[in-house]
């Protein structure tokens, strides 16, 4: 039992990060505004969670200029994908064990 709980990834112990990772796993890339609307978040809130995931190398951030504005898009890294899939597996195991 304790073993499974240790398998749960602390980085995903939060609804917002769970949402970010879920969306990135099924979409090739998602831009800032779409992510914000999809998860119903404020700019600052999304940015802080993204940067936490970026620090862990789970999310790749791409910034480019579209005209005069910057456009930020996010992608999941291979590491992030693996980590999130493991997290889902651990959640499922936890559910079935009880």
């Amino acid at each position, binding site marked *: 039992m304790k073993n499974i*709980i240790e398998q*749960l990834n602390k980085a995903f112990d939060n*609804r917002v990060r*769970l*949402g970010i990772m*879920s*969306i990135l*796993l*099924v*979409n090739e890339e*998602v831009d800032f505004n*779409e992510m914000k*609307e*999809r998860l119903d978040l404020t700019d600052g809130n999304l940015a802080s969670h993204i940067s936490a995931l970026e620090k862990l190398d789970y999310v790749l951030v791409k910034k480019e200029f579209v005209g005069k504005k910057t456009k930020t898009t996010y992608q999941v890294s291979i590491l992030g994908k693996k980590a999130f899939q493991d997290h*889902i597996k651990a*959640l*499922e195991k*936890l*559910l079935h064990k*009880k």
Partner: protein
Amino acid sequence: MTKDNQSTLQDIHYIKDMMEKSSRFISLSGLTGVFAGCFAIIGSVVAYIYLGSIGSAYSEFATSFPRHTMWDDLVFLIADACIVAFLSITCGLYFTIKQSRKKGIKIWDSTSKRLLVNLMIPLLAGGVFCIALLKWGLFGLVAPSTLLFYGFACFNAGKYTHKEVRYLGISEITLGLIGVFYIGFGFELWILGFGILHILYGVIMYFKYDTKA
């Protein structure tokens, strides 16, 4: 214990829900199919009566490859088809917008754009293809070709909305292929494909997705 059963289950539901919502357009209303099916049947009956009034059965019309093309008749049939398409699309948009308001989802986002692109490319190709068939007087191949290309479109678009649309696509492709071999039955197959199947899948989708809040 850091996580109880309830929150684990909630997490899994949340993950599934987010994956679903961000990759598929789920506001497509089943009523769209029901109404499109009804319009198609009405349109077919109008065409049937018209062909009857000029003393030409569909099977005759389809296989005759006339040299002196009956342009007036053709214009009537094409206008009939365009009205059916217009009414179906208008109704579809109405119910889909209503549904997305009810669910509180934006109608124009990456999922609906993706759905539209994947639907429209095979559909437009089919449209151009059918114009070419008309040009060469191959009237009998038009009905099965519309079924085929519409089937390709639905099969393709089904990846980005309810999975029933994908099954609808396979069914339409099957009918289209049958129609290419049995050209005389194009009329019946068309009613089956655009009328009955739309209503059938529409009802299934309505009870599966629309009635669920």
